């Protein structure tokens, strides 16, 4: 039903086992952030890896998802699962508009347009301090009670919640790709003119993928707001857009497990290099360059190529 290859099934089982055991070994907040960013990167990977569009404005959906999700929980006193759903819908709604504009151009123009459109959201977040908190950000976001019953305050409770959403998102993204729809999407990546001549409405496919990516980004943003209890201008800024692209690139563009591995590597780097503050940017830049020149397939891609498997 899920359409995993045998290797992917094994990988999936291994991934679930590791994620179940991990919070007893590693810092749960770190692991939850990895899963949030992995969700975020899975959306970006749908765009970059499967339909061949590079968006440099994904943080707009992630950040606004975070703001709306945080607002819903903090000020409207909604339950956390509703906050996450609202965050995802916010991302998707912005994605509908931005995608509608951006799919009119391709490749580098698409990248520049998404970057420019994200500035609107950025501008809004800086200006409307009543809602977003401006420079201070939205602080002390409560985690609330799941369905009004189970408190998510304890890290392990929130971890379980995050894990469920992450796995749902993972299976959803895989289901999208491994479907007749997904086959057309890949055909568009391989040869857009041929897909058009075969009668496919290429723009609609691009738009739908863009909206799905924005939806996943919104969910990830709202979830991240619950995990870190804070949403700031960084979450909606260009650096975050760059980081998610880096995650996809490092993990492996167009691989199933790449976004998770990429997110784990980049977030770990930020944790361990936090004391070097400004050098983090330099190191991230060097990794960008190294990935482009030396390992374009990314960690998962290189690994899969060695084993002659599809992961």
């Amino acid at each position, binding site marked *: 039903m899920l359409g995993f290859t045998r290797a992917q099934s094994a990988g999936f089982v291994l991934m679930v086992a590791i994620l179940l055991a991990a919070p007893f070994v590693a810092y749960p907040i770190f692991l939850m952030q990895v899963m949030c960013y992995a969700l975020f990167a899975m959306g970006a990977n749908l765009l970059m890896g499967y339909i*061949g569009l*590079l968006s*440099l404005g994904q943080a707009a959906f992630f950040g606004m998802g975070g703001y709306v999700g945080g607002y819903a929980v903090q000020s409207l006193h909604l339950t956390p699962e509703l906050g996450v759903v609202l965050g995802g819908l916010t991302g998707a709604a912005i994605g509908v508009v931005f995608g509608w*504009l*951006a799919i*009119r*151009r*391709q*490749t*580098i*123009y698409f*990248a*520049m*347009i998404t*970057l*420019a*459109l994200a*500035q*609107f959201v950025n*501008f809004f977040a800086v*200006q409307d301090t009543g809602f977003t908190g401006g420079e201070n950000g939205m602080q002390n976001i409560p985690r609330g009670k799941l369905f009004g019953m189970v408190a998510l305050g304890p890290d392990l409770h929130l971890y379980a919640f995050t894990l469920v959403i992450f796995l749902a998102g993972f299976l959803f993204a895989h289901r999208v790709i491994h479907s007749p729809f997904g086959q057309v999407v890949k055909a568009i990546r391989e040869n857009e003119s041929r897909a058009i001549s075969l009668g496919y409405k290429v723009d609609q496919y691009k738009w739908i993928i863009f909206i799905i990516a924005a939806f996943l980004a919104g969910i990830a943003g709202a979830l991240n707001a619950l995990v870190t209890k804070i949403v700031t201008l960084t979450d909606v800024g*260009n650096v975050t857009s*760059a980081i998610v*692209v880096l995650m996809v*690139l490092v993990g492996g563009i167009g691989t199933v497990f790449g976004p998770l591995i990429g997110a784990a590597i980049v977030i770990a780097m930020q944790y361990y290099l936090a004391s070097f503050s*400004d*050098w*983090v*940017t*330099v*190191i*991230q*830049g*060097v*990794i*960008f*360059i190294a*990935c*482009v*020149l030396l390992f*374009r397939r990314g960690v998962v891609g290189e690994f899969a190529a060695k084993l002659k498997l599809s992961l």
Partner: protein
Amino acid sequence: MMMIFGKPAPLLFGQLLLGIINGSFYAMLSLGLAIIFGLLRVINFAHGALFMVGAFVTWGLLHYLGIDYWVALFAAPLIVGAFGLLLERGLIRFTYKLDILYGLLLTFGLALVLEGLFTNGFGSSGVSYNGPDILSGTLDLGFMFLPVYRGFVIVAAALVCFAVWFTIERTRLGALLRAATENPSLVQAFGVNVPRLVALTFAGGVALAGFAGVLAAPLYSVNPNMGSDLINTVFAVVVIGGMGSIGGAILTGFGLGVIQGFTEVFYPPASSVVVFAVMAIVLLARPAGLFGKAA
């Protein structure tokens, strides 16, 4: 006081002037991007960072070597251009055979490295640079006061833009460049060293960014983020104008600066997003851009 459209004239002219100045930078930077893209098929995301490097080089020349502004006006673009040559030969040329997006990602990484390095070296608040004394003070034009340096920036930018346009559209070198843009292998078959032409084109485009950096140094605070703040707008300018036409890039740059200036007069909050709004409208009405071919 004279009023135009219900606004005091000095305010209107003052903002128009600021708009033209911003437009000069948009024009110079989008021009460099267009030239580089034309031949290399690479959109240089490090362009803003190299603009910033140009401003820092100007400051460094004075601060460490005591070299003044007038020399820096020529030296800094050369230094930035030479640096660009190294980048092209050392890194960027390896992306030509790959998907077009890899060139973007590589230069994007380059921008992060440069900005990170300068932040480490000079802090995020940066340094300040005083322009030459002869250009300080203001000129009374009758209808407004014009700070001399600002007038100089507009003239210098316009001259450089014209010179670049002239070189590309009216000289033999430009003809070669245009031919290589159309069909590199054919031009190579005629005995032209195309890889060298490509490298020099990149250096030239980057030198333009360096030159813009020199002009910007006395105007704005010289800081590591000055390029990334500007370049987002420049990319929108490039989307609006399309990169197919040199004249188009220049016109679009100046035009959007003026639109931004007017927005500052009539509805200030919108001035920082008006360029992006224009971009959205152009995408709806003319998806290929004002001067562009479909891409």
